[in-house]
């Protein structure tokens, strides 16, 4: 299966382990990723703060490239996913306003969980699992932008998404129920108002711990970075230890497939996941 791939700026830098693990998972499942040629930044959380037109024009250029490629489009970053979904809807209703040339408007845009949580791919995933992540208890954290607003994301259940829960169960994990799946972690304010993220992310850690989770799993590079890199200072402020590794869902999928490259991804994490994985007999296979 050939799929167009829009990594976005984060996956080429801060979230390179997300990019590498997603590529590893796709390779294992015979999904061929074709990175969009000469893609540009989608404008993320910033363009719409300043200019509505720019907020469509930047992602519209990428959608036009994907439209010409003609395949489904996989977007692992939640911010990119949302901005390209906005642009796609605008382009479908009035292409001439945004681009020169035609727009077929037949590209289906997928975020990571929804991409894999389809019957044929779920069957391949189940068949590929070599080391089920038995005994590893975690919570699925979806964050904001892959779900909201549903009129743009087309999320079927934006207040209680289940696609990542399905994926994690398929690789043998114990997925704990919690009510914070889509609560904001505050990542967009991480540099400017750290006090806000100390509260929002701290509340997520408390809730995850209360749910009996040993780790958080996400599919958003901003959430992962925020929850992983800020955890130590939140622990210091709250006078407690959470010690909750924050995984990308694709890292855990690759681990369950017996991929030998996981150790290099763990080195990028601030909260070291190796002790937890070792205690479950899931580390050291590399």
């Amino acid at each position, binding site marked *: 299966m050939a799929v167009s791939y829009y990594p976005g700026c984060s996956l080429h830098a801060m979230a390179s382990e997300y990019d590498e693990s997603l590529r590893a998972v796709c390779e294992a499942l015979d999904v061929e990723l074709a990175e969009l040629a000469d893609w540009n930044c989608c404008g993320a959380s910033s363009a719409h703060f300043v200019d509505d037109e720019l907020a469509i024009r930047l992602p519209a250029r990428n959608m036009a490239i994907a439209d010409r490629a003609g395949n489904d489009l996989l977007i692992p970053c939640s911010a990119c996913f949302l901005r390209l979904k906005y642009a796609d809807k605008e382009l479908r209703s009035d292409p001439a306003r945004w681009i020169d040339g035609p727009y077929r408007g037949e590209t289906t845009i997928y975020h990571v969980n929804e991409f894999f949580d389809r019957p044929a791919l779920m069957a391949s995933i189940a068949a590929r699992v070599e080391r089920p992540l038995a005994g590893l208890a975690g919570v699925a954290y979806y964050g904001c932008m892959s779900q*909201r607003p549903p009129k743009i994301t087309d999320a079927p259940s934006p207040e209680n998404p289940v696609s990542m829960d399905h994926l994690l169960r398929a690789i043998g994990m114990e997925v704990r129920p919690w009510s914070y799946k889509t609560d904001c972690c505050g990542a967009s304010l991480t540099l400017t108002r750290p006090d806000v993220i100390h509260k929002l992310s701290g509340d997520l850690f408390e809730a995850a711990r209360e749910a009996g989770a040993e780790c958080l799993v996400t599919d958003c590079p901003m959430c992962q970075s925020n929850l992983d890199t800020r955890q130590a200072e939140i622990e210091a402020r709250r006078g407690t230890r959470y010690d909750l590794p924050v995984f990308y869902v694709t890292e855990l999928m690759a681990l369950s497939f017996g991929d030998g490259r996981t150790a290099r991804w763990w080195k990028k994490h601030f909260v070291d996941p190796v002790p937890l994985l070792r205690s479950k007999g899931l580390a050291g296979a590399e």
Partner: protein
Amino acid sequence: MPDDPLIRPECGFLAAVEERCGEKVSRCYHCRKCTNGCPVAFAMDVLPNQAMRMIQLGLEDELLRSRTIWVCASCQTCTTRCPNDIDIARVMDCLRQLSQEAGVAPGEPNVARFHRAFLDSIRRHGRVSELEMVAQYKLASMDLFSNAKLGWEMLKRGKLKFLPENVRDRAEIRRMFDKRPKEGR
């Protein structure tokens, strides 16, 4: 909300906001669903439903000066839950844009500086260089030393790239910025 109990409603601002963003703010009946679900309400000086009321009443200056419009994280919870189908997060975008176009000093100057640094990096390269963007933000905010340890730890783990990536067709990217109707700095 302002301390002065005497407010003389004025509809021009409501009309301007509704016209610009296409959202019917006049439909808001203050059920407070937006405010109750807002994760950053605790850090706001004007609550989301109060902001809708201030638009209805024409309290333009007070609202455009507020911290609220900058502290909103665009998490879209309010938009998703509004029973009157008002895209409140979009209204917040509109208020930020109006405040910049009117030259109002941002209620949260660092948030405005952050987005400026982010967009400048896109304008230069077509993609964001996280390292360059953070450096520009740090200089602009004069907040040079907070998170220094965090930055170092990120460098050590290879999470920050030194060299920016460039889009080949950067002229096209610059044209997108130049088409902007107003600079809005």
